[in-house]
């Protein structure tokens, strides 16, 4: 188990200080401070730290809105924190732009580090620092892609649902039509049956009518005959009568 001896160290520092004062050795602290300050602060470290702060901001932002983003939205629509899809798209877009910017910044830092003339150790150190930042960025991107995957999955699920309901309604309609068509065909059958029945009767009537026509024709002929006969008969009667009358007259004359 490790033992923290920092306090012991600080106590040693005090001891040494007092000892030095006693001996008369002092240290020109101000000169050293200036000396320390005059070391150029390399631009690498603050920039790297900046990238990290940005990525952390992104992470916090994503985590903050994660609940709302992922939530399916309840029917209790009085929930103010519900997000519309537009909001979600906005978040997606912003996050992507952000991630790209961070990635660019890292690349830029890397290129600069390559070009700078510095020792191998510092190069390796900076390379490793950039690797660490990249891994961090990848971790945050993973957060983002996870929640996006959930959302997209839900979107597909919703579409699935919609398609299913559409299909269902189509199926209902088709069933209805099917029922109607069946009825129509049934009625048609009855109709055909009736028509067939009537055909027989009509044939019958047709026959009768044809017969009747014939009879009437014959009848007409007979009447014509009869009229003719009648007329001829009349002539003969008339002749007879005339003859009789003449005969009478003759007879009368004779006798006279």
């Amino acid at each position: 188990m490790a033992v923290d001896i920092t306090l012991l160290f600080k106590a040693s520092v005090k001891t040494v200080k007092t000892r030095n004062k006693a001996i008369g050795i002092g240290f020109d602290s101000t000169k050293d401070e200036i000396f320390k300050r005059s070391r150029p602060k390399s631009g690498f470290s603050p920039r790297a730290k900046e990238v990290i702060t940005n990525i952390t901001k992104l992470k916090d932002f994503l985590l903050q809105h994660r609940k709302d983003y992922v939530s399916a939205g309840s029917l209790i629509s009085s929930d103010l924190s519900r997000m519309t899809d537009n909001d979600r798209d906005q978040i997606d877009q912003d996050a992507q732009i952000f991630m790209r910017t961070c990635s660019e910044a890292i690349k830029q830092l890397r290129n600069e580090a390559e070009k700078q003339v510095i020792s191998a150790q510092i190069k390796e150190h900076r390379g490793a620092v950039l690797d660490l930042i990249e891994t961090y960025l990848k971790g945050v991107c993973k957060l983002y892609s996870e929640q996006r995957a959930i959302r997209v999955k839900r979107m597909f699920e919703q579409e699935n649902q919609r398609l299913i309901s559409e299909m269902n309604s189509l199926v209902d309609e088709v069933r209805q039509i099917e029922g109607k068509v069946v009825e129509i065909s049934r009625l048609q059958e009855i109709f055909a049956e009736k028509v067939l029945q009537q055909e027989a009767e009509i044939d019958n009537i047709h026959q009768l009518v044809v017969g009747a026509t014939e009879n009437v024709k014959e009848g007409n002929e007979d009447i014509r005959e009869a009229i003719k006969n009648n007329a001829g008969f009349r002539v003969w009667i008339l002749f007879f009568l005339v003859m009789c009358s003449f005969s009478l007259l003759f007879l009368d004359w004779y006798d006279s």
Partner: protein
Amino acid sequence: FVGSLFLCCISAVALKRMLNFNAPPLKNTAAEPVWKVLIYDRFGQDIISPLLSVKELRDMGITLHLLLHSDRDPIPDVPAIYFVMPTEENIDRICQDLRNQLYESYYLNFISAISRSKLEDIASAALAANAVTQVTKVFDQYLNFITLEDDMFILCHQNKELISYHAINRADIQDTDMEAIMDTIVDSLFCFFVTLGAVPIIRCPRGNAAEMVAVKLDKKLRENLRDARNSLFTGDSMTAGQFSFQRPLFVLVDRNVDMATPLHHTWTYQALIHDVLDFHLNRVVMEEGMGAEPSAGARPKKKSRKTYDLTAADKFWQKHKGSPFPEVAESVQEELDTYRAQEDEVKRLKSIMGLEGEDEGAISMLSDNTAKLTSAVSSLPELLEKKRLIDLHTNVATAVLDHIKSRKLDVYFEFEEKLMSKSTLDKSLLDIISDPDAGTPEDKMRLFLIYYITAQQAPSESDLEQYKKALLDAVCDLSPLNYIKQWKAFTKMAATPANYGNSGVKPMGLFSRVMNTGSQFVMEGVKNLVLKQHNLPVTRILDNLMEMKSHPETDDYRYFDPKMLRGSESSIPRNKNPFQEAIVFVVGGGNYIEYQNLVDYTKSKQGKKIVYGCSELFNASQFIKQLSQLGQK
């Protein structure tokens, strides 16, 4: 799981805390990166490199990791974390850095406690450079030991010759030298227990270096506990985690109790790698035709060598580091097949994606494959990592296999096991030594030394001459034998010779060809040996002490309890219950065979946790060199 002894976790947590400016690391995944520079000395490097990889360091914001004594350029807008030993040169260099205004702020962490006077040196340098405000924090880390595994640690890697077996056992050692060595060892062990946050109960044998270490350690712990203001073992400084209700047992043994095991040829994966390849601090270095790999810790790049890190994250390694080698070969093949199947699956999905819109059938398959594709894509890095590990183990195992085949290590292993378990031998020792194809001269020397060490009766003069002649013919160096003779004479006086238990080695016959077609590892001619579980001497000693068993070997051991008041140094242990946690430490050096034996022992005991430590880690060839040096005096 009872116990808090998860060394890797504890040490790694301590390191991570240090690297986070001594604040607990946040678990927030998308936290702002804070960058820093890490400066260490070789000790610090050895401590960090088995626990944290370069990638992990980068993830924690370390942009550069540099050696203290190297040319370092000023980077004025970055905080620097120092992790060094508080030695004269290191302090001077730190003062120089302060004067040169290299960094923006300084976090000084000392591996072991820094003395007051050295702290004042830094204070005066800081004053002179007007940099006192820049020195933000100073810590004593108490991490002066190297954690290799969750249950294994060593004291140091740099300068290990200062506390090596040779350094401790040489004939011309002075008392002052011995004192210095003991102080070094005790300092590290003290740091170990501070980090662990536990005060152990110490057991040690009498009359050797282990006893000296135990006495000094007990004294140091006692002093620290009595010092109410600065005690490091108060309740708040305990490490987080599960505590066992008991204190751990700390067993100190001397290397001299078992000299055969470090020379033994082995058959388990990790121990083999340590024996035949260049393996230290969990890193294997192999000669290859390929270019250099970037290695962690800013070590100098070696041309045409490949380095592999065998870490806790490597599942295959964790599973198989204690497995017998044939099992490892099979498992690598299995892993390769599984990997190929998965790769084909991914390829198939790829081709299906290519058919999109063209094939009606494909579109319908698309819907279930989209999920499969997502999982395939996300598992691609895993797959690539798996491939890398499979390649790594294939290369390593192949290299090991080459050694086994060319040196006939399986023969040596079998023979030595039989020697150590006093079973009947089917070959004569002389045959193996005289065989020009079997093994290097060192292998033969190792075998002979084990024979000599484990023999109940010393061989007769004529036999000995015969062996010596055969060894000299095989170009062996005989000086280790001189030392072993001395050692044997000494131990015969002291105690009963170590018993290696009844191990049994059952050869399962030669590998069948059927298994090998299509396998990378053609093990024909190599015996498939199966180990029966047996306890090496160190394991047995631990078993006796942990389970409170009575045994002539350990009954005589001393008992120290730093928490108890003086006067109770009797050897009757107060604690009657078996211990749940134990730490075994070998003074004079240890190796992976002992470690593996302890691991196997722990597996057989439910709920116990055992940690293995040693002052240095050597393989057989390094040990023989030390014996050689000792034998030449």
